[in-house]
């Protein structure tokens, strides 16, 4: 680790003494408020760092300040770096990095919305998470704000949509209640005939106060809230939260649990990817493969109900391990099922990509270039479909991933086809991982009992590469060892700006299939 500190301190021009390693895989630097922009520039230019999360904490009670934290992923050094600085309550501002690093754009605005800390120099300092009827000066994540405060609605329009002018140029409003069985959000298209000029998003319709709720619930119950951050990523978020608590307490899950967690996470990846491939077919009205994909998914989730007691794998991950074991018979049944699934899935993908009328709709549709994906901070499978080679399972292995051989599929196209092919190739890899994990399940207990109390005044980062991308949970405790801040970063929050960038230039009828190829979570984004 000393070599890492050495390398990072040289690249950032910081004294090595200002960097330290609270625990393996996490590096921390406390910097002066004025140094944020320069450090960000050096991180990106010198170390190829990617912004993974950015948030604030209210430390007025014990430190008399707010704090701003940036979590960076340093791929070359295989570590996360948390850059923290203080924010004076008398002058609640911090230096924005969003003008040069657009990946910080929404993060900084959310800090402004929820903490009232203003990002100085932000090119567009308008609310991102607050709706128009939210009053000024109500900052929900400040410590003085009780979670049951009934906030009155105010009238007004604090962030109007961008106007469009010209003959045949108009707005198309869509949502919040959509036409399908999907989550709510508002899309405002500026169109000239059919081609889309731009897409503006207004999300946060399903904001449930999840981060505030974590501060209220006993920490042991937090894992159930984590499962409900995004229902399709129950395992991903439960793992990220469990990892954070385990790293905080030094509780090490036994080997069998680490293998079974890989099994659960890969099953979640497979059922979602299959379902998305079917939905892409649905959105171009190709119903036979769509029905086949739904059938493959249903057979898998009903097997999950039989083996793990939950169709969507809820209640399977525990802090310190897993709750449900897999018997030898169950393992054999799952392996046999995966064999059939692999054959059926391959013929499904062949059916799709051999069909000219299908590839016509997906080739070159909704292109997100590598540069745009990198600048906007797009992550997970959407990033891999735009040529960015990143995957936490390989780069920052959690659970038992370092024990398995697999490749990370990367596609260069950035279009709907690339996102479909990344999914198809990932399913193949996941089946390979599952075969390795199921073939070598260690014979150990399922769970290490976590300590009764969390350590006071400590913080830890937990991560897991969910099917959509990295799920990050950063947790912090107060003087009594209770959770005082939980920052949840769902990959959707980083990818929505990428979707808004991929749509312009396409025609409105292609929007559903572009949207589905990203399949972002509204609930994970809005929390």
């Amino acid at each position, binding site marked *: 680790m000393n070599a890492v500190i050495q390398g990072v301190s040289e690249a950032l021009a910081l004294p090595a003494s200002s960097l330290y390693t609270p625990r393996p895989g996490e590096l921390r630097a406390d910097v002066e408020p004025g140094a944020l922009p320069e450090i960000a520039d050096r991180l990106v230019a010198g170390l190829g760092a990617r912004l993974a999360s950015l948030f604030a904490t209210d430390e007025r009670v014990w430190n008399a300040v707010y704090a701003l934290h940036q979590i960076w992923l340093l791929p070359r050094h295989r570590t996360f770096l948390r850059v923290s600085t203080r924010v004076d309550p008398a002058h609640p501002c911090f230096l924005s990095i969003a003008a040069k690093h657009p990946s910080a754009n929404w993060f900084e605005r959310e800090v402004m919305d929820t903490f009232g800390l203003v990002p100085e120099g932000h090119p567009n300092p308008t609310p991102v998470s607050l709706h128009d009827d939210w009053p000024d000066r109500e900052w929900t994540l400040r410590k003085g704000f009780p979670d049951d405060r009934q906030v009155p609605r105010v009238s007004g329009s604090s962030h109007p949509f961008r106007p469009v002018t010209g003959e045949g140029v108009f707005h198309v409003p869509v949502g919040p*209640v959509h036409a399908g*069985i999907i989550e*709510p959000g508002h899309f405002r298209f500026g169109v000239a005939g059919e081609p889309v000029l731009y897409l503006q998003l207004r999300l*946060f319709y399903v*904001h449930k106060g999840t981060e505030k709720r974590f501060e209220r619930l006993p920490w042991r119950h937090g894992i159930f809230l984590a499962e409900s951050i995004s229902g*399709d990523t129950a395992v991903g978020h439960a793992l990220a939260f469990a990892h954070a608590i385990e790293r905080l307490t030094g509780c090490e899950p036994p080997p069998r649990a680490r293998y079974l967690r890989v099994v659960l996470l890969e099953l979640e990846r497979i059922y979602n990817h299959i379902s998305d491939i079917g939905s892409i077919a649905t959105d171009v009205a190709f119903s036979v493969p769509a029905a*086949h994909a739904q059938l493959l998914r249903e057979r898998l989730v009903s097997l999950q109900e039989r083996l793990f007691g939950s169709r*969507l794998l809820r*209640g399977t991950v525990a802090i310190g391990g897993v709750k449900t074991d897999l018997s030898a018979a169950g393992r054999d049944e799952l392996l046999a099922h995966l064999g059939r699934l692999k054959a059926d899935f391959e013929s499904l993908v062949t059916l799709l990509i051999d069909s000219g009328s299908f590839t016509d709709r997906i080739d070159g549709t909704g292109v997100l270039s590598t540069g745009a994906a990198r600048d906007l901070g797009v992550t997970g499978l959407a990033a891999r479909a735009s040529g960015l080679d990143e995957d936490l399972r390989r780069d920052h292995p959690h659970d038992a991933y370092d024990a398995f051989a697999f490749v990370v599929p990367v596609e260069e196209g950035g279009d709907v086809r690339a996102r479909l092919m990344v999914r198809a190739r990932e399913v193949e890899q996941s089946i390979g991982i599952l075969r390795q994990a199921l073939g070598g399940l260690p014979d150990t207990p399922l769970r290490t009992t976590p300590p009764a109390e969390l350590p006071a005044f400590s913080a830890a980062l937990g991560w897991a590469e969910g099917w959509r991308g990295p799920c990050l949970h950063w947790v912090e405790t107060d003087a009594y060892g209770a959770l005082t801040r939980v920052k949840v970063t769902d990959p959707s929050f980083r990818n929505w700006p990428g979707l808004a960038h991929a749509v312009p230039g396409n025609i409105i009828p292609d929007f559903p299939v572009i949207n589905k190829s990203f399949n972002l979570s509204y609930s994970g984004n809005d929390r």
Partner: protein
Amino acid sequence: MFRILARSARTGIVTNPQPLAPRLHRGFPVIDFRRCTACGDCARACPTGAIQIGAADAASPGPSPGTTRTVSLVYGQCISCRECIPACSEAAVTVGGSFDLVAHTREQLIHRASFDVDPASGRATFRQEESVPGPSLAESAQRLTARIRGRFGRSLHVRQVDAGSCNGCELEIAATTNPVFDLERFGIHFVASPRHADLLLVTGPVTRNMEIALRRTLEATPEPRVVVAVGACGCSGGIFGEGTYAALGGVDRVVPVDVYIPGCPPPPQAILAGLFVAMGIREARARPRP
């Protein structure tokens, strides 16, 4: 083209002829009240407060002569996490196989028993169950079958509204349309607009930011209409609670609810069962008044 047809022929019919028949392997927890000692360990383990220990005699809290205690399992709040099962030292809580806990009121989703507390030892002994039974699925299904056979063609159009869900319920609602469950064979059809709908299938917790959209969607739905609340959050706010700054709670906090389908998320079987019960209601409302 021929390959597509051949593939479909090879697959054959995969639809389950009796979608409600298979029991779940692990459904809701069930308390055997005869073994229960009303100690409250399960209530402390429950993350959503679905298990509640109450003093039936509110005027005299604490163990005093003649005190009774109640134990309630509120299925509307239960997320099937099964934390209560290992918490019980009497092995009174077990996993049930049922999913068809459809109800017309929140009260029907509560299984409750009262206990007599011995003032000397503090021991609680079971007195009686006090649950309010919900609609019987067998009855509703029978009525439905008769109706479909009798008047083929009348159908139920459903508009789904996500008023704050985590999207787990949406996944399971969408699964009711897959080839295995195929709810369209029962005359149930998902439509794109509330103006075409007979029934709103609402998931929650209703958020502050969706409250107005939900009210407007209801206004846009023609009478006679039925509202079905889906999921632990839709029934009670679930893990997100009720009355926070962002989550108002169950759907009935905002619009009147006719049918509750608990579960986190309820499996497709349960959603189908709930829709069958709701069809019965709509049938009654749509009948011309004498």
